[in-house]
């Protein structure tokens, strides 16, 4: 058979590689900015778009989708072409994929700090960007699948299977989790409410870890580790077995994020069981990766790339051991909402994802530029600094998590909470947070050394034209017609078409079915629970905008310690009007689900302006702008109409958001706002509150026009519907 000459598209790989570096530095920097906030809570005070609640989503999104994402794409484009002995299917698609992805990242970097957020973790982007993400992802999937179809190697190497499963699964997860009803261009409401929203969110959230931070990275491991070690995988058979079992099991583990919550018990058990089973395929991959280095340990001593891979694969093994353990309810009861989880995910991202991607860059970039790495010594130093950084980050966070969890649960002999003041449990762990910031600084330093090294490596060689590779048309390409081969051809095409058709059908079906299903969903409603008033709704949107869920949960678990601290535990029926849910996943501050009525309006006013004035030692940032900003309620009617579509009927079927109610919304809003403003004035806010004096001087300001009033209205409403009922019943 004659050989075909062709070229690998290395340009797109280079683009992705450099994007990885740039966004990696960005993600680490933003991470550090928020980490230092627990050390110096006020160093960015007064700048709304640099507040913790807005920057933390930027950090997570940048780390996952910008840094790891571009890293995955670089590795996928590099290895897929070589493994399949073909150029990518279509250069235009590759370019659309690259530039589209960067556009998404830039839009995310603009909108998230502006507070344009849907508040669903790792899916915070608002609906126009969501659509863009879906489109770009389809482009990537199509490009990848068609490259597989026109391959020149019959056998599809295991790495490619990991990439394919990633492409298909992420598309589905992303679309279903982001089904939302737009109210305006920058504001939408999740079609799911409360518990249902939580279920879908963590089904997505866990699988973002599974199919964005695990399967593609394993694919990269199966290509780059053998390449760098110059040894075949320990067991190709094991790689196949663990691939299929991993993707079959992973999708069911999501509910382990909702243990002890108001989610149905059977769903929680399902999540736990599948999470436990996951240890087998996960460790299959870990063992396979580590044993690939058998007989190459002498080279590990010298080669920084292999060193990074050893730490990365070990980190993978540790976090996939820890994951199933944390899915045990008894352990989860301690770990959930604490820094333990932060430590757990950073073993995964800094160790596993970060070092696989960085090791890959050290190996790939010199080859892309047909040269040698500028400095192996520098890369070795990077490895050590990075590894120490990871340890300094992770170990203090584990200790902080354990310490705080135990303090939360500590009782006095007389049955009262030993640390009834939440603040005490924060002050205790702050030194650990300082150390974490130092660890993060080291990790960033290492990454900067990587940038320098790679730039120096590429510098003198930019002129060199890459892409010149020739390879034989070894096996039959996908579509051949030699007698009975027609059947084969049909089969292959058939599979492809089935897959694509199924995806399209599923998405199309969902778009049709979901809105009808979710209107008046069948969560048992409680008589006492009612939809938000217009002002509370605006307040809730401010809560979402500021990302309060990043530090405050709204889910009281049925433990004595939590009921004692926060009030009656949460019931599913209390969340039926919550689009989206605000349960959160971390308690840097206390739970707020029963915050309503606990403290006077004036306290909230002063506290939001300067938390430390009301709670000494508080590390919450000052939210001065909420006091100063005028409330923009011009969209309130559009928002209410959107929410009505999603369901605002009471238990007995009466509609609360009637046309009349919505038409009166601005007046109702003004009335409720005035009541709160009057209450503040009655308590001499204008003379007695330093917050007021600091914000407005001796000017008379109509507080009912300010954002703070809406937020107070929402906070005072939180969790009161059912507790009020109990009180009146007692009377």
């Amino acid at each position, binding site marked *: 058979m004659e050989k075909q000459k062709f070229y690998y598209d290395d340009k797109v790989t280079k683009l992705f590689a450099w994007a990885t570096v740039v966004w990696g530095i960005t993600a680490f920097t933003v991470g550090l900015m928020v980490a230092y906030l627990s050390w110096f809570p006020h160093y960015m005070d007064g700048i709304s778009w640099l507040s913790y609640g807005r920057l933390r989503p930027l950090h997570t999104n940048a780390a996952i989708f910008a840094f790891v994402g571009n890293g995955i794409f670089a590795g996928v484009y590099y290895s897929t072409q*070589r493994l399949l002995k073909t150029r990518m299917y279509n250069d235009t698609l590759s370019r659309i994929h690259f530039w589209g992805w960067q556009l998404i990242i830039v839009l995310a970097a603009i909108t998230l700090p502006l507070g344009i957020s849907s508040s669903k973790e790792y899916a915070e982007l608002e609906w126009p960007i969501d659509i863009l993400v879906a489109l770009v992802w389809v482009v990537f999937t199509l490009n990848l699948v068609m490259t597989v179809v026109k391959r020149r190697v019959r056998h599809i190497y295991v790495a490619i299977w990991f990439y394919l499963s990633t492409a298909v699964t992420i598309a589905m997860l992303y679309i*279903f989790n982001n089904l939302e009803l737009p109210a305006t261009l920058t504001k939408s409401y999740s079609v799911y409410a409360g518990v249902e929203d939580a*279920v*879908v969110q963590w089904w997505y959230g866990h699988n973002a870890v599974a199919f964005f931070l695990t399967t593609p990275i394993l694919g990269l491991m199966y290509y780059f580790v053998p390449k760098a070690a110059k040894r*075949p995988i320990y067991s190709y058979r094991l790689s196949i077995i663990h691939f*299929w079992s991993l993707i079959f099991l992973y999708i069911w583990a999501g509910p382990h994020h909702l243990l002890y919550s108001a989610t*149905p018990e059977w769903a929680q058990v399902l999540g736990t069981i599948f999470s436990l089973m996951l240890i087998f395929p996960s460790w299959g991959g870990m063992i396979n990766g580590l044993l690939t280095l058998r007989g190459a340990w002498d080279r590990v001593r010298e080669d920084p790339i292999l060193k990074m891979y050893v730490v990365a694969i070990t980190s993978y093994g540790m976090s996939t051991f820890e994951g199933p353990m944390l899915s045990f309810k008894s352990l989860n009861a301690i770990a959930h909402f604490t820094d333990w989880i932060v430590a757990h995910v950073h073993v995964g991202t800094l160790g596993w994802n970060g070092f696989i991607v960085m090791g890959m860059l050290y190996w790939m970039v010199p080859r892309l530029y047909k040269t040698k790495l500028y400095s192996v010594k520098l890369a070795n130093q990077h490895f050590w600094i990075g590894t120490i950084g990871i340890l300094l980050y992770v170990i203090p966070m584990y200790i902080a998590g354990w310490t705080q969890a135990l303090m939360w649960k500590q009782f006095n002999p007389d049955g009262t909470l030993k640390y009834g003041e939440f603040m005490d449990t924060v002050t205790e762990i702050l030194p650990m947070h300082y150390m974490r910031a130092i660890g993060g600084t080291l990790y960033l330093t290492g990454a900067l050394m990587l940038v320098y090294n790679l730039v120096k490596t590429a510098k003198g060689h930019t002129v060199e034209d890459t892409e010149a*590779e020739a390879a034989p048309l070894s096996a039959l390409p996908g579509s051949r017609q030699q007698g009975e081969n027609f059947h084969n051809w049909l*089969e292959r095409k058939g599979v492809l078409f089935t897959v694509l058709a199924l995806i399209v059908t*599923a998405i199309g079906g969902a778009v049709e079915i979901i809105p009808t299903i979710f209107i008046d969903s069948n969560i048992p409603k409680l008589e006492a629970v009612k939809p938000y008033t217009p002002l509370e709704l605006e307040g809730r949107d401010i809560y979402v905008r500021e990302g309060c869920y990043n530090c405050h949960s709204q889910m009281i678990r049925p433990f004595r310690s939590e009921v004692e601290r926060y009030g009656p535990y949460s019931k599913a029926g209390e969340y039926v009007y919550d689009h989206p849910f605000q349960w959160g996943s971390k308690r840097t501050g206390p739970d707020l689900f029963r915050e309503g009525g606990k403290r006077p309006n004036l306290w909230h006013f002063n506290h939001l302006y300067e938390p430390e004035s009301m709670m000494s030692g508080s590390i919450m940032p000052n939210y001065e702008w909420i006091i100063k900003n005028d409330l923009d309620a011009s969209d309130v009617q559009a928002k209410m109409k959107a929410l009505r579509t999603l369901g605002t009927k009471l238990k007995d079927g009466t509609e609360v958001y009637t046309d009349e109610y919505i038409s009166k919304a601005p007046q109702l809003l003004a009335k409720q706002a005035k009541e709160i403003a009057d209450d503040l004035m009655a308590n001499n806010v204008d003379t007695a509150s330093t917050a007021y004096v600091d914000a407005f001087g001796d000017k008379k300001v109509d507080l009912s026009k300010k954002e703070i009033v809406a937020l107070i209205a929402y906070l005072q409403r939180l969790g009161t519907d059912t507790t009020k009922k109990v009180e009146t019943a007692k009377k």
Partner: protein
Amino acid sequence: MIALYLTIFISLILALIFLVLFLNNVRQGQYEDTYTPSIRMILEDEFEDHSEEEEE
């Protein structure tokens, strides 16, 4: 809890897709040889390999 049924339904569809792919792979003989693929990808001749040797 429609959302639960929905996520389960989608997960099942996904599992079905994977199952079809898997069975198809087996029928195509993708997994008949579980050794040489791992060797082949190592030996793949990278154009620049001749210039690139062990780093010191």
